């Protein structure tokens, strides 16, 4: 029963089952090396050897622990000694703790992989009664695990650059990380759900959150729908058989999409300036208005301005998309409808529209998710302004994401910002997930 033998050996010393029982030396050594690496990191990044040699009398994990033990200690306590040169830096401890935790999980996965491999190799020998030679075995190992071997380096980079920061942000939501507790001067503490409670029960926070959320949802919905339908209208007009110079018009109308958004937005910010903006001046000179319109400084008009500027920026994407969809429509449907006596409007309403909706539904949802987080569209145009004194650090046109940005960069309210990031992530993630579940691309996975 080599499978149990190999398994039990590999339980303690990684790869030993493969090495001794299954005679797969290289593979066994590979696993053993990883185990030695794991132990080595801990031993040599800490002071365990000196401790074992009796050189350290007042041993503590805080001062003498290795990469893993100190990491986990930091994650749990977030530091014990305040400030100064020799104090603990909670944020650093948290990041290192999360990194240590990730590395431990990676090694655990390797450990289980080693167990599974030992068992399977043993099973193979039990069944066939012969040992595989090294070359043959390595070839099989590489062949079976090819996808993992290629993806692991990319996956590790992904884990640290994308996943780790997200985990950090989520954890921040459960800390008292704000202006009053800034490392390295102060230590941080785990506060459980206090920040969530604060956001929903402290009137100024909940009131601001609610107002910002309502505007964010309104903006997402109106901003997406106006660009969608206006893009469709432009595509229909461009597609009309009588239109000349289609390519010239198409190229011009694509410009707002082609020009870098930030430049366009900053241009509009100056064009619409309430005091000496060219738009106001032109309207004054034409005698259409008698005094300046506060395009960006009146709460309501600023919102309108944002929607209209966004329409200018956003319609080309949908226009181009719809042109593509129109080109792919099955013409025989329209011929059949014409034979059945449908007029142009009926065939548009009953055939074109449903097909276009079906073809662009996924993009519409993705665009909504994008607008929900359209930081630039707000920040570069109004900076979230005009200021609103009865809101907590938010302006009248701030959407959640630009408010979070202000809370983080200007107010150093990392904890509340993190709580909102989590809520926002849950919302957008859920919508996208639901959207993907509906689409064919998921079923084909």
């Amino acid at each position: 029963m080599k499978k149990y033998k190999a398994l039990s050996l590999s339980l303690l010393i990684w790869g030993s089952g493969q090495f001794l029982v299954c005679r797969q030396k290289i593979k066994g050594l590979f696993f053993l090396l990883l185990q030695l690496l794991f132990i080595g990191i801990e031993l040599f990044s800490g002071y365990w050897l000196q401790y074992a040699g009796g050189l350290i009398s007042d041993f503590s994990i805080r001062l003498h622990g290795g990469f893993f033990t100190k990491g986990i200690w930091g994650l749990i306590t977030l530091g014990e000694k305040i400030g100064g040169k020799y104090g603990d830096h909670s944020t650093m401890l948290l990041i290192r703790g999360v990194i240590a935790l990730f590395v431990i999980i990676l090694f655990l996965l390797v450990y289980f992989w080693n167990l599974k491999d030992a068992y399977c190799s043993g099973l193979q020998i039990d069944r066939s009664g012969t040992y595989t030679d090294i070359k043959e075995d390595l070839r099989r190992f590489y062949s079976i695990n090819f996808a993992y071997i290629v993806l692991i380096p990319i996956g590790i980079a992904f884990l640290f650059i994308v996943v780790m920061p997200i985990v950090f942000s989520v954890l921040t939501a459960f800390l008292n990380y704000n202006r009053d507790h800034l490392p390295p001067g102060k230590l941080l503490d785990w506060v459980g759900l206090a920040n969530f409670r604060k956001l929903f029960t402290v009137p100024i926070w909940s009131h601001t959150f609610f107002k910002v959320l309502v505007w964010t949802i309104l903006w997402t919905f109106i901003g997406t729908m106006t660009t969608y339908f206006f893009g469709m209208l432009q595509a229909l007009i461009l597609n009309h058989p009588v239109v000349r110079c289609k390519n010239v018009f198409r190229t011009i109308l694509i410009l707002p999409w082609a020009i870098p958004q930030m430049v366009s937005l900053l241009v509009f910010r100056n064009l619409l300036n309430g005091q000496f903006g060219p738009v106001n001046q032109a309207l004054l000179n034409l005698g259409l208005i008698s005094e300046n319109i506060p395009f960006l400084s009146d709460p309501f008009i600023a919102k309108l301005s944002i929607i209209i500027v966004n329409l200018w920026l956003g319609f080309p994407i949908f226009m181009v998309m719809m042109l593509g969809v129109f080109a792919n429509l099955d013409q025989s449907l329209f011929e059949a409808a014409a034979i059945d006596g449908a007029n142009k409007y009926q065939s548009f309403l009953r055939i074109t529209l449903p097909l276009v909706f079906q073809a662009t539904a996924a993009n519409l949802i993705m665009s909504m998710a994008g607008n929900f987080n359209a930081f630039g569209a707000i920040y570069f145009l109004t900076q979230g302004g005009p200021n609103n004194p009865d809101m907590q650090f938010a302006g009248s046109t701030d959407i959640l994401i630009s408010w979070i940005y202000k809370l983080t960069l200007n107010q150093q309210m990392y904890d509340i910002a993190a709580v909102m990031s989590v809520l926002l992530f849950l919302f957008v993630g859920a919508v996208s997930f639901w959207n993907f579940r509906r689409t064919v691309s998921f079923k084909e996975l």
Partner: protein
Amino acid sequence: MKKKLTVFLLHAELILMSFIVLIPVMWIILSSFQRGSGPPVAINLKGLTLDNYNRLFSETSYFLWFYNTFKIALANMVLSVLLIMITAWIMSRFLFRGRKAGLMAIMILSMFPTFLSMTAIYTLFLTLGLVGKSISLIIVYAVGAIPYNTWLVKGYLDGVPKAIDEAAYMDGCTRFQTFRKVILPMSKPIITYCAVSQFMLPWMDYILPNILLSGDRSRTLAVGLFALINGKESINFTVFASGAVLIAVPITIIFIIFQKYLVQGVSAGADKG
């Protein structure tokens, strides 16, 4: 008669829209040639001058910002395309345990705006001692590009018949040879899309470069440009305009040249529905 009216109305609408699109564009271009420093209220076509461009090069580090950004854009383009293609190829062609979960996970994670985790990213690079170095931004961009683009390219590769790979294997190609000689040449359009979109990303991205590369010497263009106009609002508007025009024109031209591919990339999900 009715047909004539339709023709007139349609063209009138298109011409009007073209004006609405072009006016802001013309205004910023002409602003960059105006005398004075504030946003011009009325464009003066007689006194056009190159002063602002001279000031841009002499008084700001524009050229350095341009060079920084170009370096990042190029490196990001190469690295992202490599990472995206390999990941998407594995996801499309190999069945392994955890594949579906992995795809789902990267999908959801790509919904988390990168800059919400800026504090963590900053601290991470601070720990690694890479804040202020271009490499930090390149890493974040390239790895951050994986989720969305992997889905896109995987969708494209799923449409390429597997029989072609099989034929290559029959001819004795290894997996990587097949990837290089079959998959990559077959995916030119989607590679072009990824390459162009990744190349363009750093030019106008603001938040992350602002956090990771805030010094004047290491700045990217967007951060530098915004500094010209922000706070000191209209003081330097015409200089800002010249900087904006110098960068927006090449980007727009690149966009128009590659629009076919960019449009494909955007509407890749459209015909699936």
